[in-house]
């Protein structure tokens, strides 16, 4: 809940998301014309800075994808159906609703779109990994330097990969949909590996969420000047 409140505040803040090759994961890729030029990927800004005369924070353009990925995630579904919707509040505890239709009708039928958010999430993971690599530059743009910020972005993007690769849709796509494992030995092997990761999907969900939030906090604090990004070398 505190993450949702913080993420909402940050999504609308529209500032303090970039400093010396560190970009907040909430604002990457920065696709708005309002983005700082150095925060964009090769100056690619296809989205207008304003929509209907309202300033559009660059975070709002992309946060829909990780938000959708987590909202439709099988683990989070279990979690929020139990804790917020109380359907059921706990196992063998009566639920308060008079009627129940599960995920068969609008809007919950859209939970079936999880795979599309998974695909979008993979694209974002590539971009966030690129951001982590870029952070191995010093403020003057020279490669081969490492700061606390580089580590923070590296850990955050790595955990996001683990979260995505342990996803149930990933497990299905990579081999779960097969009827004959024996005819697809490579996909079977990959499925076995993803299945191992899948056991820890819940853990990766929370670790990656915490890591992304911390990465954003770190970049924001550095961008506002509250914290100094310490360089190891």
């Amino acid at each position: 809940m505190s993450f949702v409140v913080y993420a909402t505040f940050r999504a609308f803040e529209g500032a303090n998301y970039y400093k010396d090759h560190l970009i907040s994961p909430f604002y990457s890729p920065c696709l708005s014309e309002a983005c700082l030029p150095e925060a964009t990927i090769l100056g690619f800004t296809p989205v207008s800075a304003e929509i209907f005369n309202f300033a559009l924070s660059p975070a709002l353009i992309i946060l829909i994808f990780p938000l959708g990925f987590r909202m439709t995630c099988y683990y989070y579904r279990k979690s929020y159906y139990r804790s917020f919707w109380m359907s059921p509040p706990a196992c063998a505890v009566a639920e308060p609703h008079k009627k129940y239709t599960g995920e068969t009708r609008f809007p919950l039928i859209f939970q079936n779109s999880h795979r599309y958010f998974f695909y979008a999430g993979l694209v974002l993971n590539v971009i966030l990994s690129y951001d982590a690599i870029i952070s191995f530059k010093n403020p003057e743009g020279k490669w081969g330097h490492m700061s606390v910020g580089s580590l923070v972005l590296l850990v955050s993007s790595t955990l996001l990969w683990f979260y995505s690769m342990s996803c149930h849709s990933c497990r299905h796509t990579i081999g779960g949909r097969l009827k004959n494992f024996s005819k697809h030995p490579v996909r079977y092997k990959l499925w076995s590996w993803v299945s191992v990761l899948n056991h820890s999907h819940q853990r990766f969900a929370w670790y990656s969420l915490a890591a992304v939030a911390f990465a954003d906090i770190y970049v924001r604090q550095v961008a506002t000047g509250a914290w100094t990004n310490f360089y190891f070398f």
Partner: protein
Amino acid sequence: MARNIKLRIWRGDSTDGGLKDVVVEANEGEVVLDVIHRVQATQMGDLAVRWNCKAGKCGSCSMEINGKPRLACMTQVASFGEEETITVTPLRAFPVIKDLVTDVSFNYKKAMEVPAYEHPKELAPGQARMQQIDVERSQEFRKCIECFLCQDVCHVVRDHEENKKSFAGPRFFIRIAELDMHPLDMLKNRKKTAQEEHGLGMCNITKCCTEVCPEHIKITDNAIIPMKERVADIKYDPARWLGSKIRRREGL
């Protein structure tokens, strides 16, 4: 060492009933079914309880112990506090016949609604061959002892009697998954019927079935979610649907 424990047992039938308190002796290492049998032998001669193997393999002694669906023969008395009252009630999702015995015929009706395995026409009986890795996948689902604890705990029918008509329940989702993942099964519309007739979409994957399964079958992760993804392939994924029309790949 023997000690006296407090037991609260639901007594009654389909018309009326209530909880009755008894104090009964329990020996070290005994399970709840043992003390229920002692109550039956010494204090309540007409107490109805269904049981068979006393080894957690027949699935007969399913009941709710302190509100949780469990096998009485696999629940150690020592797992409760010395002063704790152990409350034993019948499975809530099914109609009571007498005391701790419920009518689980709902499950047998649902079992009949799941179409059986369809063997390839070109293979005579005895000619079918399967690789070990294909067998292993469905082997997990074959561990099911049909205790129906998963069916009992599932809130879709536990809290909504009206859903019983359109919802097969976790036990039969693993049966459907087992058949849909079977390399030789030729029946084509299992995914579609799983969603449209057996109520797979009603499941909101809160995993209670997995939590209560005495055989530790990963019902949600290995059967229900994979089936939901397979249903999404044919019903909710336009790209997959288009791909299947162009390449016409069947039975991957």
